[in-house]
């Protein structure tokens, strides 16, 4: 089921930072996730692409909550997108889907950030 550890790639775009995750976030990998993402949410909107994330435990969900909260304090957003079925099912089961900004695809997440930007410009 899970063969990888966690690989994180970061791409700085004009209106957002795109973070792509490959592998799993568990008790052994969540610290990398914290270290790489915490500075980013203080700078810009962040889109986290979950497409290649196979597994997330409570430690990872806790980090996402923290990143969402830090980002809000700076007036930015964290949008998570393309979640695999077991992950979205579990987030919904524990009713945390209301706490996160979740989009079905990366395109939808980018559209959301762009429409925010246009609204602010008006």
């Amino acid at each position, binding site marked *: 089921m899970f063969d990888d550890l966690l690989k994180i790639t970061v791409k700085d775009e004009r209106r957002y930072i795109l973070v792509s995750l490959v592998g799993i976030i568990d*008790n052994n990998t969540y610290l990398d996730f914290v270290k790489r993402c915490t500075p980013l949410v203080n700078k810009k909107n962040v889109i986290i692409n979950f497409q290649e994330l196979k*597994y997330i435990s*409570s430690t990872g969900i806790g980090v996402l909550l923290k990143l969402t*909260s830090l980002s809000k304090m700076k007036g930015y957003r964290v949008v998570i997108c393309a979640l695999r079925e077991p992950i979205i099912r579990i987030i919904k089961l*524990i009713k945390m889907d209301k706490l996160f900004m979740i989009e079905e695809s990366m395109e939808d997440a980018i559209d959301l950030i762009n429409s925010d930007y246009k609204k602010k410009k008006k």
Partner: protein
Amino acid sequence: MEHKVVDINIVPDHVFLHSVQTISEAVMAMAGTGAMKTDYKTYNLVLAVDEIVSNIYRHGLKNSKGDFLINLKYFINDDKVRVEIREGAPEYTPPTTYDEKMVLEKYCGIGLHLVRTLMDEYKYYFEKESKTNVVMISLNI
């Protein structure tokens, strides 16, 4: 009738999730669940055992001396998989309710909430004679 199918001691290190995966997948296959059902039920079982062992690793282990082993026992019967997780860290009191304020302010308590939500049964007790913490979870299949 219930059968014990796995009885293993593990070291709670970085490879334990792979052991938990392999064992849980094998046990679910032995339990004979349908393919679709097995996928998500196995995922739930792996996650629940991972959460319990990670909690022991984070909270129990720091108060213990010497080698620290966690004993995992898996049992199956016609309609249930049951897992017993035993270890010798100091006795503790798991919270009995989900505290959303604690989760939102301190980002903790999510693991146990997951276990209670995903499993059909969760029970903790302390065996006084052997000084052992025992967590028992079960999943209907």
